């Protein structure tokens, strides 16, 4: 008998992600449905998908590896380090709605990449961005509302004169970046539809995608009470997740985790009331911040020496939840990743990437995909494993 189309889709949504995607080749109708956001929603309801964490080592030190830590229930499974054999160094610099933003530093090229579908788009840095060496970029993916995404870069102007933003929309056929300057400090900061960066002096730069506005937000003065001798000044603020502070969005609040020599404090900004809330002081140094999502609820995990702590912003308390072993590593920036079928647009013809670099980029992208898919399907193995160098390379 011939099954009703809805039932065929229902069955396919029970397939492991990789195989469901493979069904795109069965027929045009299936391809259309599988690419639909609604299907993706059903699919992920049936699948026990792990949240992956991507890290790229230190923000200034670029290492040829991706680390992953995935959570299984409440336990952290050991980190598996992945060596990539791509001839080009790249790092994950932003993650949004299932798409990764990779940065191929030597090539001056960004790569928007969906590890589930394997499609990627190459985008050249905005002009002069490459030479700044201290800029940051972020990815905003509008999926499933639309199939569009936007790439935003932020860089410091010379002599501390402020900051400059560039925006490129996937709907743009010209591939041209648009430039924005910071307007003024008094505009409200929105959490949704915004990207945020932290400067080394602790200021928060915010770019609102929908309104196309850039603003600066300053954390409360009281953070200065905790004197921090390590804070770098002088050369002007670099735009990085500085080593003492991290900026994450959890529970609908912009949350800044500040850690000092022997203590830590968390401040959360409520965009509606425009108020900061300060947590109790934790008498320990936080090594790593892991924002994640459990059963649809955002939770902030903190790695303190030897232990994993959960911070609950509603009741404003810390709770020790698990042992955290040193060998899991202490990456300085972590991006939680949930797979989606968000489409990636094709690289524009005007994007001039030297053809001889394409195989190397492809290799890096392929390996990120193998790495991601292996974990999405929950094949937890505790040992380290390394992708074999391909015979051809």
């Amino acid at each position: 008998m011939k099954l009703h189309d809805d039932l065929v889709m229902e069955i396919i949504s029970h397939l492991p992600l990789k195989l469901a995607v493979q069904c795109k080749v069965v027929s045009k109708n299936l391809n259309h449905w599988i690419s639909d956001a609604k299907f993706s929603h059903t699919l992920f309801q049936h699948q026990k998908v792990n949240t992956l964490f991507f890290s790229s080592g230190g923000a200034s030190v670029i290492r040829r590896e991706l680390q992953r830590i995935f959570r299984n229930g409440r336990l952290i499974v050991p980190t598996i380090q992945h060596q990539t054999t791509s001839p080009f160094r790249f790092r994950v610099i932003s993650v949004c709605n299932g798409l990764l933003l990779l940065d191929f530093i030597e090539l001056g090229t960004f790569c928007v990449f969906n590890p589930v579908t394997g499609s990627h788009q190459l985008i050249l840095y905005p002009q002069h961005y490459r030479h700044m060496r201290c800029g940051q970029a972020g990815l905003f993916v509008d999926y499933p509302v639309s199939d569009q995404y936007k790439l935003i870069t932020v860089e410091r102007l010379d002599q501390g004169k402020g900051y400059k933003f560039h925006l490129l929309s996937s709907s743009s056929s010209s591939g041209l970046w648009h430039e924005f300057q910071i307007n003024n400090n008094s505009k409200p900061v929105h959490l949704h539809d915004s990207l945020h960066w932290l400067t080394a002096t602790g200021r928060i730069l915010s770019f609102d995608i929908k309104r196309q506005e850039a603003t600066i937000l300053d954390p409360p003065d009281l953070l200065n009470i905790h004197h921090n001798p390590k804070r770098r000044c002088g050369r002007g603020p670099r735009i990085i997740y500085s080593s003492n502070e991290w900026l994450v969005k959890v529970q609908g609040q912009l949350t800044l985790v500040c850690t000092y020599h022997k203590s830590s404090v968390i401040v959360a900004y409520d965009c509606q009331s425009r108020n900061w809330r300060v947590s109790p002081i934790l008498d320990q140094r936080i090594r790593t911040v892991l924002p994640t999502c459990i059963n649809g609820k955002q939770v902030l995990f903190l790695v303190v020496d030897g232990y994993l702590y959960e911070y609950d912003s509603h009741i404003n308390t810390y709770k020790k939840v698990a042992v955290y072993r040193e060998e899991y590593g202490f990456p300085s920036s972590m991006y939680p990743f949930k797979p989606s079928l968000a489409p990636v647009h094709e690289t524009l013809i005007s994007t001039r990437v030297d053809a001889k670099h394409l195989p190397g980029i492809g290799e890096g992208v392929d390996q990120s995909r193998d790495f991601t898919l292996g974990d999405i399907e929950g094949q937890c193995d505790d040992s380290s494993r390394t992708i074999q160098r391909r015979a051809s390379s």
Partner: protein
Amino acid sequence: MASTTETKQKKMLILKSADNDEFEIEESVGVQSETIKNLVEDGFTFVPLPNVYTKALIKIIDYLKKHANKTDSNDEEIKTFDKDFVNTTFDDLFELVSAANYLHISCLMNMLCQTIADRIKDKSPEAVRKIFHINCDYTPEEEAKIRKANAQAFEGQFDESLD
């Protein structure tokens, strides 16, 4: 003390299949189906099921009876029953999945979909088309393009069989 329920009159329902066979079942068994439950709540005791054929209905009634008596002690027994229940051809599974969908029996729906999904897991796209009776509407060029875009998914050996 154990037999107080015996004296109570059990409420019964009559289900009528698409090929006009009638089956009498206990109401408590039938209401595991959301569709039947809604009709019972509206006062019906005679339930025509124009989309469910006798062959599938017999199997589904078996399933409902088994699952209505679920306790902690017969867990293993039910597992064995379920395993036998889905051990059949694709076409039979499709009949059952259509019936379970019409009757809104979500646990059965899930089990059947998962079973079929597990069985098509290693199949080639050609085999999947045949199993689902789907016509390929791609031109060879279009198909090659989409395979290329998803190249990694198409590595390894496929199972071409249709059972």
